């Protein structure tokens, strides 16, 4: 039944222009002329707060929603959510839409050991990722109308708890995944349509490459940080030297100041890397896992159909009953395939956009860095050649 909702993409973009729009929901919203799709749901995640109870310590994040949609009783909501709640939301979405690409959540634990569990850096990274997660859902043509998503955004803490307790819950999702894994262990699907076979091949390569990129990006960050650390010591030596000199003291101090400025510029460059490229690449590392999972689930749905078709071929009795079942399964497979195809195209477009902007940002960061350093050294050079009495650089100096 849920598959009928999935294929009704035509309805997904609907909005009600006749609904009264409150002034507060007009904040940084519509670009009437620019965007064909008008955004009517805005979500932010901010303000992490620590909660200490007898049993545990955890962080909650403030989730603010501004919307003009009719389905929402109010146009503004503010709730607090913890990581567990996000996990719940993700699993509900996966359950409801097994062949849609559900955005990744930041990991539960940090394996790399670079960051402490509740350090400011960790919390901020997580907050940004959670913000991205909700926004990707809000921008998704189908997921944005998911009921659990709405409840997540609007329910008070106790409301959410009670809602969570309903529904099939964790076990059924696990069962689904187990079946999916089992079917993939059995060596994949026999009649996998070419389109999905191509997707699988693509994802295998993509997954491999994105993981390598993740390592490279981290390596670059590490090298830049080491460089920064050494640079911090480099400038001050020149200042120290200037203390024993007279004639060249100014030149030495000038060099010291240039090095210090370049040092600061390199710090900015590092920060740019960790704020933009690293999180995006990491997201797509997670996405590659998600996509492999989605492809497996699609395969699993298809193999359900295939096995029933095989069974029918063998059985002579109850043909009618079987055909009805098979008919339903055929619908199911068609829904799943269509959903996945549409979402795949959308994902690829987003991926292209994200990669383009992330790497362009890296290039911009580097350009800014080199331009700052250039300006610094050029102004030093100008200051030196002014008191140089018009002497040219002696070419005969080895």
């Amino acid at each position, binding site marked *: 039944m849920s598959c009928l909702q999935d294929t009704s993409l035509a309805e997904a973009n609907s909005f009600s222009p006749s609904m009264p729009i409150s002034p507060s929901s007009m904040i940084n919203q519509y670009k009437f002329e620019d965007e064909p799709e008008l955004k009517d749901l805005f979500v932010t995640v901010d303000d992490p707060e620590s909660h200490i109870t007898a049993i545990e310590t955890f962080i909650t994040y403030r989730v603010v929603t501004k919307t003009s949609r009719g389905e929402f009783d109010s146009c503004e909501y503010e709730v607090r959510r913890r990581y567990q709640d996000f996990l719940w939301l993700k699993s509900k979405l996966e359950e409801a839409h097994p062949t849609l690409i559900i955005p990744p959540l930041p990991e539960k634990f940090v394996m790399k050991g670079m960051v402490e569990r509740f350090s400011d850096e960790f919390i901020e990274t997580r907050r940004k990722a959670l913000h991205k997660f909700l926004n990707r859902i809000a921008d998704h043509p189908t997921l944005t109308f998911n009921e659990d998503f709405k409840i997540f955004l609007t329910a008070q803490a106790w409301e959410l708890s009670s809602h969570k307790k309903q529904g099939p819950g964790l076990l059924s999702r696990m069962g689904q995944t187990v079946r999916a894994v089992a079917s993939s262990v059995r060596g994949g699907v026999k009649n996998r349509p070419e389109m999905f076979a191509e997707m699988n*091949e*693509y994802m295998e*390569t*993509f997954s491999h*490459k994105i993981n*390598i*990129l993740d390592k*490279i990006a981290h*390596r*670059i960050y590490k*090298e*830049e940080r*080491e*460089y920064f*650390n*050494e*640079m911090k*010591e*480099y400038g001050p*030596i*020149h200042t*120290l*030297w200037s203390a*024993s000199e007279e*004639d*060249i003291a100014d*030149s*030495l101090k*000038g*060099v010291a100041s*240039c090095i210090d400025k*370049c040092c600061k510029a390199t710090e900015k460059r590092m920060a740019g890397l960790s704020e933009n490229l690293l999180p995006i690449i990491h997201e797509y590392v997670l996405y590659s896992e998600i996509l492999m999972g989605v492809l497996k689930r699609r395969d699993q749905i298809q193999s359900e159909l295939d096995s029933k078709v095989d069974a029918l071929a063998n059985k002579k009795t109850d043909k009618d009953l079987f055909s009805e079942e098979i008919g339903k399964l055929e619908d199911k497979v068609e829904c799943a395939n269509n959903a996945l195809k549409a979402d795949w195209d959308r994902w690829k477009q987003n991926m*292209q956009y994200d*990669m*383009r902007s992330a*790497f*362009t940002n*890296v*290039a*911009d960061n*580097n*350009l800014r*860095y*080199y*331009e700052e*350093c*250039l300006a610094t*050294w*050029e102004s*030093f*050079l100008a200051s*030196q*050649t002014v008191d*140089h009495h018009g002497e040219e*650089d*002696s070419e005969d*100096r*080895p």
Partner: protein
Amino acid sequence: FYLTNVRTVLFFRAVESQNEGQCSPVDSLWRRYSEFELLRNYLLVTFPHIVVPPLPEKRADFVWHKLSADNMDPDFVERRRIGLENFLLRVASHPVLCQDKIFYSFLTQEGGWKEMVNETGFQLKADSRLKALNATFRVKNPDKRFTELKHYSDELQSVISHLLRVRARVADRLYGVYKVHGNYGRVFSEWSAIEKEMGDGLQSAGHHMDVYAASIDDILEEEEHYADQLKEYLFYAEALRAVCRKHELMQYDLEMAAQDLTSKKQQCEELATGTVRTFSLKGMTSKLFGQETPEQREAKIKVLEEQIQEGEEQLKSKNLEGRDFVKSAWADIERFKEQKNHDLKEALISYAVMQISMCKKGIQVWTNAKECFSKM
């Protein structure tokens, strides 16, 4: 003249310019590093009041990991050749040193030069290190300017070593940053194979990342020359200290001679007047075992008077020597200071020029890369 280096046996060929008018028709000959050392040692002993230009390092020091510490490494050998050429140029352009015959024959006479140097007997004139160390500790009134100069040279040596060490580490790290970007090239290329629209952008961006990674080699090679310029002054600090040490030695010698003279004069006076003002073992024993005869005393006084006369002449000439030394040493030191200020300022400027060039290259590469990325 200029130096070209050819064999791995590390002979350097000094090629003389045509303008040196002497009879020797040899215009190029071979010299090894050890012969340069011999020449320098000769100059140090023969011209102790001159800040003698230093030789480049024998072994690679202050290396960062990519540069091998191998003395046979062609880049190192080339830089050493430049350093040796620089040494000769400095000696040749020094108003005093350039006139030395041994230096001249170093450039013109291939065979027998070593023997010639040894025949000057300069090794015998060299002050022992122990004597010099002793003087440093015991001298009472060295010229203040030399004391200050010694402090300066200590500071200079310490700060330049520190700077060179950190520079080597910075170079190492910079190398790492650039080279890691080279990894992008391959991944982008492999990734572009599965992408239809992004493929071209990725592929060409990867190429630019390779260019970026490769560019650091030349940049750092150039920086090594800058480091060599600083190293020269690191080694010059030692030459400065050598002049200060010589002054301390001469001053100490002078003080000892003066002290000796004073004590002899006193002895003489005591013998003449019969009063004993200073305690001496001799005095005591003569008191205990009987006094000397007037003849003996007369003889002693005579000897002492001769010694005193000699001593006074010696003191006079030592004083003169000392003053001359201070005067000419200080003149060379002033010359050296000007040279140092000029050279170091030039070096710092050339460092800035290198940084500017590096930045411009970076801007070029990343502008190209950005264009490729925007086409993804």
